[in-house]
């Protein structure tokens, strides 16, 4: 199980526990000998649901997992009151407390993992496909001109072809840093496939391929992209992690969408530069993928 799956698991766990606490608080409080505290259990349930929804739906789950840690502490505080000698349910309360401690440990690990960039700093492999309503030749031609790719791939600053099948790639790192490498085309089948990989001395080892297949029913081209990034350990690795944010898969999906927009409509749908009643037109909260 990788870090992302653990995070998702914690999200669903929050939702499930929260629903039980909201729907059957009396069962839970009587099971643990919490007495007449259904209202508190129910409020805790709402808290769990909010954390769960946050983890599952928000682009940056780190803070939401941290909210779980805070919640665990509240749970432990409540349970500690049920550990008093007089409670006939002391045994179940102790078991519940032990379970909460276990989950707390997982929450702490996961939240630390997420704030370090999560699974990403150990490299990643992404596969995505999209249908574009144009013949394979058109899209092959677009892609073969590597210099045009940064227009759709926002993590890239430039690609410069300095020799046949050789190009120099510059990617944007955080805070104005850059990652650079030379790449060579390893396979080139006109209108079908382009594959490339980075050469010795790259800041980050990576490889990619794009296939162009005729989509069923004459509905254009099925474009399949695969990307592999194997960042080095240490500080540089962390920089690479930031390159794609917390969700490389989503980033690649957005990039492919931009490719489709550009090829089908001649432009890329954008909201950056639109007015709004705040300092910046786009929203920091929701427009992370359209802000450049």
């Amino acid at each position: 199980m990788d870090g992302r799956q653990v995070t998702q698991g914690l999200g669903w766990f929050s939702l499930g526990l929260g629903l039980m606490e909201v729907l059957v608080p009396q069962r839970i409080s009587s099971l643990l000998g919490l007495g007449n505290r259904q209202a508190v259990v129910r409020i805790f349930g709402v808290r769990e649901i909010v954390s769960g929804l946050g983890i599952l739906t928000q682009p940056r789950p780190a803070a939401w997992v941290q909210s779980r840690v805070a919640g665990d502490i509240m749970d432990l505080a409540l349970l500690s009151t049920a550990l008093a000698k007089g409670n006939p349910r002391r045994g179940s309360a102790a078991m519940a407390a032990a379970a909460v401690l276990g989950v707390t440990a997982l929450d702490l690990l996961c939240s630390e993992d997420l704030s370090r960039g999560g699974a990403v700093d150990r490299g990643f492999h992404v596969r995505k496909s999209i249908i574009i309503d144009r013949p394979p030749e058109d899209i092959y031609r677009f892609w073969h001109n590597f210099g045009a790719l940064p227009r759709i791939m926002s993590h890239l600053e430039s690609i410069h072809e300095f020799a046949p099948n050789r190009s120099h790639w510059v990617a944007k790192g955080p805070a104005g840093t850059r990652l650079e490498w030379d790449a060579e085309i390893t396979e080139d089948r006109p209108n079908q496939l382009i594959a490339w990989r980075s050469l010795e001395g790259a800041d980050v080892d990576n490889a990619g391929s794009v296939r162009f297949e005729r989509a069923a029913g004459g509905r254009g081209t099925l474009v399949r992209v695969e990307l592999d990034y194997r960042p080095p350990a240490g500080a540089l690795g962390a920089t690479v992690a930031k390159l794609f944010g917390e969700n490389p898969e989503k980033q690649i999906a957005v990039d492919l969408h931009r490719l489709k927009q550009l090829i089908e409509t001649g432009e890329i749908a954008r909201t950056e530069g639109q007015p709004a009643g705040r300092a910046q037109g786009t929203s920091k909260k929701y427009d992370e993928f359209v802000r450049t």
Partner: protein
Amino acid sequence: MKATCWFGKNDVRVEQVPDPEILNPRDAIVRITSTAICGSDLHLYDGFIPTLDKGDILGHEFMGEVVDVGKGVNNLKVGDRVVVPFPIACGNCFFCKKELYSLCENSNPNAAMAEQLWGHSPAGIFGYSHLVGGYAGGQAEYAQVPFADVGPIKIENGFTDEQVLFLSDVFPTAYMAAENCNIQPGDTVAIWGCGPIGQLTIKCAYLLGAERVIAIDRVPERLRMAREQGGADTIDYTAVDSVIDMLREETGGRGPDACIDAVGMEAHGHGIQYAYDRVKQAAMLETDRPIVLREAILACRNGGTVSVPGVYGGFLDKIPFGAVMNKALTIKTGQTHVQRYLRPLLERIRNGEIDPSFIVTHRLPLDAAPEGYEIFKHKQDDCIKVVLKP
């Protein structure tokens, strides 16, 4: 320019914001002459649509005069008078070519976010949350209109703004809701909700050949308008024990041939079921209150159609899907493919078959938008439709 901005639940303000600019070759800038508050804007105002951010400009029903065009727009020129459809559509993709414009694959820059919630993304929509693009809306002095070579329809003089303004949303939405019912001669159509969409849906159902329309609401002046303007029979649901029984009785036990939910996610009702949905929605255990949808499914005749122009956002509880299956119902819904209806419906207005302006009850300056939202939300002063004049 001045624009109506969302700042939170029950909090919209008219703010000074930068003027919009041409950002892409196929853009146009429109100086807005009339813009309306939609019933679906109230879902934003009430805080039930996620992914709004403080400062977002609202509004998706607007018209005006073209003041600038990008170099990719050849069919419009400065000075043209246009009505702008609320979904943004490229005209080039698989769905646009099928005239399913509200499902355009290329107009929502935040499609990835919508895909997480709904599996796939619909088209971008003006001023209607970041899930559908985060585009600046049209309750403002100016708007930037993407794919202006596809969406806006030119209007010649001779029509008032109010006669054509509703081509932007409510008229096509009502028309598609009725068209989705595949109305046959002799059909009885039941319509829940007598707001602007409901009123126009009554008219469209008759235009498409319905023999009888039964409209359901609780607001006296809305029921009166449904009777007097639309020629519908009406049911005040607060005055009967069961709308379903009432409809069954009116149709000899068979049920209406088609049922239209023109209410959506914030339905009102009464009794235990309504209390149940209020609590679950408040506790975020369901996102929508599907009281009308449940009723429409249960009331509809065997093999009939349930048409849903009302907006739903997320996860609904206790939908009687057993009834849908065993009664062999057809459910038709979707954001309206407005671009598909512009020309035929303008033609119907020109022929005098319908004048949608009868729904307008309030005309306010743009500065009074916050007041407009309040009046409309609380149905004060017999409010049915608010038009803002920038």
